[in-house]
């Protein structure tokens, strides 16, 4: 039987751009270029490696996001994924993590899966909780934040490097996995991959297709509310000295003045 892998990928504003909030305090997507969250490339990479090891596997990449989020799907397809699912609906604007996870869980169930692979965190929201929530919603084991992962005989194994210890984990499929940026360099799409991606199927779904009511998602349906967003004042310009042989001593004097020594 074929191993069905669903990779969750997010379309985010480029972190090296000048990111802002709009007037309704959601992410401004107009002024900054969007891209596939770099940390989700690691998820696509591990999916490709797991699929290589399996006798027969199919990789679906899934995103919940605006029209332009197709770019993120194309990138993942050009890396080697087989097909894509794009959940897009105007009512999704401003959805929080509870709404997003509800939509993703329904879309994953509709697609069919043995293994869900996500990134460790998005580069915009950076919550790092969505994979755990998906495991809770889908009712399957959570095997998250792995720096090493393998799948064999219906079992997923991996290493999770925690704050105080490194743990070896094991669970039966179906399961939800997330991988860190320590899991291995993501490949660059080849020219052949980019050409092939243009012909791969991208299925579009809206809320109706997933039996989700508009009230359950979006800014209105969110269970959290952002009341204020203020740009952090620029740090006041500091003192910069050029080392003429006394730089270390000058710095020590500064630290002493600030009572650090």
């Amino acid at each position: 039987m074929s191993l069905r892998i669903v990779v969750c990928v997010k379309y985010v504003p480029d972190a090296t751009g000048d990111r802002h909030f709009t007037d309704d305090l959601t992410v401004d997507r107009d002024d900054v270029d969007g891209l596939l969250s770099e940390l989700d490339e690691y998820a696509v990479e591990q999916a490709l490696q797991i699929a290589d090891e399996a006798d027969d596997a199919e990789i679906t990449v899934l995103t919940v996001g605006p029209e332009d989020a197709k770019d993120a799907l194309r990138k993942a397809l050009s890396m080697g994924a087989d097909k894509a699912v794009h959940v897009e609906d105007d009512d999704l604007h401003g959805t929080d993590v509870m709404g997003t996870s509800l939509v993703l869980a329904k879309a994953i169930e509709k697609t069919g899966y043995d293994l869900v692979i996500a990134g460790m965190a998005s580069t915009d929201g950076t919550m790092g909780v969505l994979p755990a929530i998906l495991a809770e919603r889908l009712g399957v084991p959570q095997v998250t934040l792995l720096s090493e992962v393998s799948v064999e005989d219906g079992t997923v194994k991996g290493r999770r490097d925690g704050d105080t210890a490194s743990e070896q984990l094991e669970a039966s499929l179906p399961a939800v996995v997330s991988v860190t940026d320590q899991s291995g360099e993501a490949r660059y799409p080849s020219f052949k991959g980019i050409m092939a991606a243009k012909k791969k199927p991208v299925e579009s779904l809206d809320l109706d297709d997933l039996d989700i009511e508009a009230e359950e998602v979006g800014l209105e349906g969110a269970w959290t509310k952002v009341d204020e967003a203020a740009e952090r004042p620029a740090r006041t310009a500091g003192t910069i000295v050029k080392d003429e042989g006394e730089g270390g001593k000058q710095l020590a004097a500064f630290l002493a003045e600030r009572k650090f020594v």
Partner: protein
Amino acid sequence: MAEVLVYVDHVDGAVRKPTLELLTLARRLGEPVAVALGNGAADTAAALAEHGAVKVLTNDAAEFADYLVVPKVDALQAAYEAVQPAAVLVPSSAEGKEIAARLAVRIKSGIITDAVDLEAGAEGPVATQSAFAASYTTKSRITQGTPVITVKPNSAAVEAAPAAGAVEALAVSFSDAATGTKVTARTPRESTGRPELTEAAIVVSGGRGVNGAENFAIIEALADSLGAAVGASRAAVDAGWYPHSNQVGQTGKSVSPQLYIASGISGAIQHRAGMQTSKTIVAINKDAEAPIFDLVDYGVVGDLFEVVPQLTEEVNTRKG
């Protein structure tokens, strides 16, 4: 007065500092009731009582260590049902966030992660978060259910506030999901004898400019002269010069110390994401145009191999 549930992060009964900070914030919202799980749970009570916990609910079942995350969610949910708190606060470790998020789904509540401050508000707790690599500060609330909020280390001062801290056994019946992910082996991280990176008052970091694993000795020597933790940029970690557990930045640790000293680090946005909220920032870099200098209170343009050893020596001399 309303009770506030505080999830305790501890290692074999030794309470980690972010939990004590959380008690300071919890007292702004109500009376803290602590939940301590796993080996040594009851040993946490004295420290928690000293910092304001009116009650300490404990359970030391083996499941907490043998299986990933879910047993702790079951226990926190049991505590939630027993206490009916006004809010649930959890330290923002990777595991803490996952526990909090799964609890929030179960009790149909919104969740806010990585708060850096918390105040009582007319419509429930108001959380301050920093967004987009700390270039924005937001204030948010939870509008559905009992607020579940995770809070970053160094978000509040640890304050003594003696309270009863009565230990009570917490009854937990584990769900079927609890045993889903088995922990088959665990290797504790070796202690370096230096302060914990996320908790340290001073962090001394090295980057690609350090140019070799052996050269990190000069970064460590400076750190030791100041009683500081050692950090590293991803470039230094990827090169294999320093362990990933010491990486500062978006995919490493996020730190907010009183003093951050960056040597041979350019100041890429992903590095800044992990240190930009430090109180005082100092950099040593041979390139006067390096973006890290935009953040500094004090910067030295120069060769770190000259400046850092001289600084260390001068600090040691001044300490006498």
